[in-house]
């Protein structure tokens, strides 16, 4: 029995690690479908990664070790966070009371190093991107934490796998509409953190308007592979948190749970693709408004949840 569990866990882990580029591919395919094109092959992201990993790297004179540490620490932080987030099943690999804070701060650690790596190049474009990244990252933080407060007070736990696991399913009736608001807020946070339209446009090539892409202009080879994979992994982690909140599953067998989640994730990727097709990127100075909206949604949810939970 234990063996089965271990095997299942390993299989799930492998699946989690393999899934992120596919989600990116789904987004791209969706956009292509809407545009009436075929789009790149389904496995194009994997080809890209393979190509990058086997290429040499170019380092500017200006850069130091910080430049190289950036992608590595970023990816390491995200991978560590992945052990704490219940991605496909309702269990995470590890977990302890309070790990939700660790997850949030691991994301922040990754961001810090990416930003520093960008600044290390000494280019004004990358500095611009770094500035925008920290600005929007900071502004999305209240929304994220307010959402977490709602979940924490609904499940009376600070362990992520409990906050969005079966306990949430049990408590969803008590929290009710607050969860819907949280889903909205988390969706905006997801779009911001993963740099999708309407906050950022990963497909554009105008340096002045980009955020994430312009930060990583100077990276090449394996470093760039780490960054690309890291971005996809972040999408997966945040996306699965969002889905756990949106569709809480009761405690059930992983054989049902996992495929369901995979389908949901694919759906989420498709939705993101649809969003990218259907609206334009916001002007940069309108983005704070969007994030403020997310914060207000989450705050409303928190007020509902806190006044509801206090009896």
């Amino acid at each position: 029995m234990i063996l089965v569990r271990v095997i299942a866990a390993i299989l799930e882990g492998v699946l989690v690690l393999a899934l992120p580029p596919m989600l990116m591919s789904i987004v791209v395919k969706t956009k292509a479908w809407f545009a009436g094109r075929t789009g790149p092959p389904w496995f194009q992201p994997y080809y890209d990664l393979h190509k990058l990993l086997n290429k040499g790297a170019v380092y500017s004179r200006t850069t130091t070790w910080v430049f190289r540490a950036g992608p590595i620490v970023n990816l390491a932080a995200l991978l560590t966070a992945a052990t704490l987030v219940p991605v496909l099943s309702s269990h995470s690999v590890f977990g302890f009371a309070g790990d939700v804070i660790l997850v949030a701060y691991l994301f922040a650690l990754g961001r810090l190093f990416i930003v520093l790596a960008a600044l290390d190049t000494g280019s004004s474009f990358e500095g611009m991107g770094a500035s925008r990244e920290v600005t929007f990252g900071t502004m999305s933080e209240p929304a994220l934490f307010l959402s977490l407060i709602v979940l924490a007070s609904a499940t009376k736990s600070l362990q992520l796998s409990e906050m969005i696991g079966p306990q949430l399913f049990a408590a969803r009736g008590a929290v009710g509409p607050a969860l819907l608001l949280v889903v909205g807020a988390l969706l905006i946070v997801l779009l911001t953190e993963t740099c999708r339209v309407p906050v950022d446009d990963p497909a554009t090539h105008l340096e002045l308007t980009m955020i994430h892409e312009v930060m990583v202009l100077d990276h090449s080879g394996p470093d760039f592979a780490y960054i690309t994979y890291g971005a996809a992994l972040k999408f997966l982690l945040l996306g699965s948190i969002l889905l756990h909140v949106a569709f809480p599953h009761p405690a059930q067998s992983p054989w049902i749970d996992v495929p369901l989640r995979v389908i949901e994730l694919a759906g989420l990727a498709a939705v993101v693709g649809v969003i990218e097709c259907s609206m334009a990127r916001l002007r940069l100075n309108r983005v704070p408004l969007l994030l403020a909206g997310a914060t207000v949604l989450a705050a409303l949810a928190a007020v509902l949840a806190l006044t509801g939970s206090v009896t």
Partner: protein
Amino acid sequence: MSAILASLAMLLGGAALSAMLSRMARLALMAGVASIIGASIMCLIAAWPCLAHSSEAAPTTLAWPTPLGEARLALDGLSAWFLVTIALLSSTVALYAWSYMQAEINRGPVPALAAFLCILVAALILVVTAADAVLFLIGWETMMLASFFLVSFHHRRREVRRAAWIYLIANHLGTALFVLPLFGMLAAKAGTLDFQFFRAALQGEGRDMTTVLFLLGLFGFGTKAGFMPMHIWLPVAHPAAPTPVSALLSGVVIKAGIYGLLRLLSWLPALPARCAIVMLVFGMVSGCLGVLYALAQHDIKRLLAYHSIENIGIIGLGIGMGMLGQSLGRPALVALGYGGALLHVLNHALFKGLLFLSAGAVMHATGTGDIERLGGLARMTPVNAGLFLLGAVSICGLPPFNGFVSEWMVFGSLLGGTWGASRSAAGMGAMGAISLALMGGLALACFAKVFGVVFLGEPRGRTLQAHATPPLMGTAMFVPAILCAGIGILPGVFVPLAGGGVRAVAGMGVREFGGAMQPILTSVTQLSLFATLLAAIIIVLLLLNRILIKQAGATVTRAVMTWGCAYAKPSARMQYTASSFAWSLIQSFRSLLWPQRKWVAPVGLFTAPSELETHTPDMAEQDVFAPLMRGAGRVFRMIRTVSWTGEPALRAIPVDAGGRARPARVLVAGVVTALRQGRIHVYLAFIVFTLLAVFIMESLSSRPLSAPGSPVPISAPAGGGIDDGGSK
């Protein structure tokens, strides 16, 4: 206890020796440094049993008569925790100062600096170990005085004099207006100055009384700690002081304020929730505004000073949740809140000390602290850059370093508060958690800015000549760096040490506390696992990177220019500046900060030199305290010169302005002339009027001013009642 006495004696001896060796600056410095390090070791020896075994040294009475009685020392968990903080940082700073101050020997009174460093450390030790009010206040004021002299080291510079003045005034006002009355009230309630009786004496007090005591303590100690808006001395004093002094100020001196607050809380019986809410609000405001102001600074030490305010805010959040837990009767919140606050005290001392020392090394190497002129130091002083980065990661509260552990605990208490039975606790917890999250994000932005602009990229100053960090300075900085990493990686070892302090503040029993602490410890130990995991993944990824590049036989191209998006000749001056980096965030919070921007836009085809300058003045200083001081000065001048304008009266009213002055003016002028200062007649008239006033008041009330119900404890002699006889 004898170890503490030995360390005090050592420090005083060191101070005396430094003062006597004023002709031989190097020897004096060495004497001071040696005595501080020795004393720190003694302090650690003294504090260790207290922390490790939760044993408490009994209060000791010194046979040392002060004018107001004997002096008493005591050491409990709280004292020991702060003692360790003091010892760790001051020994580091002393070691650093030995190297750093060599360059200043011909520029300032280094022996005096060494002597006052010793005195400062001694005063700090005295503050945290004093067990009666007089000794505490002696230590408290000596600490202020010593640091005042240290801040005015470069007293020939105008801004340094101003900073030292603000430091002195702000701190003394806090002490005189709030701390003295606080101890007066405590002593009056308890009937003694001995700390150990305060708690028992206050047990039956009403809520209003405890609230008043708490507020006095909050304002008095909060001025030292640097809570907004009493913080104004902090951002001016830190940049003005020499680096070792800044590190001590930020690392331990402001913590003395926190110590005072916690000591006060240890005497007060369960506080009403409103006190906790006040504390939390102060914490949130200090934290958020502190980090926002920090983001807007260009001077590296001023920026770090504002971060101290932010971290004091975080500590305040922890204390507030601890208080809330006490008033709601939830030991878990108490343990997390106070524990987080205490741990953050130590952590902040370590990483802020490290950051200040590192910033000092930058200034030592380049001669400037203006971050807009720096850049690319990571290649010139790689060790220093690494240490600064470590400090930056710690102060942002990011794993796997120590800042994360304490912020984690504070977060735990804040989030834990949201599912209590109390609506106020839930609301405050939620708001606290959001502000803490916001602080984290802003701190990240701020340190990305500092580290990125100072150490990365290309040097901005055309002639930036940086020399390497002297080895001794680097060595000194490794001490806090190792501790930062150590506490972050092994929190399970360090967190329990704060237990004695928490118990002392909350007055909890060992068993109750143990029950509350157990789940926290279980979780905290887990953190080491993730630190290890993170490190392991980093190593794996690093190796993978290396192997891939090697195995593919691919080339690593170096020595190319950064991709400038097809711009052919980028220069160092085109880099993103710190102001630009922070501007979008500052702009978003402009309604809180009121940044000022001076912009000369480029116009036309052949543009004239254009410039952009941003400046964010401190609101509390510019809009509250400065007008207050000016207003007070003006009122006093009006009283002095007997006029409504503050101008000397006769100058304000022209005596013969064409002979057509209105009657009212003539009358006013006449009265003013009569009252004009400096006339013997007015002097004499004052005597007459005083006499009249005294007798009129006396005949109006047979017993003026003696408040009813407050008997004057003067033994009435036999036969003499209080009755004063009939009126005249």
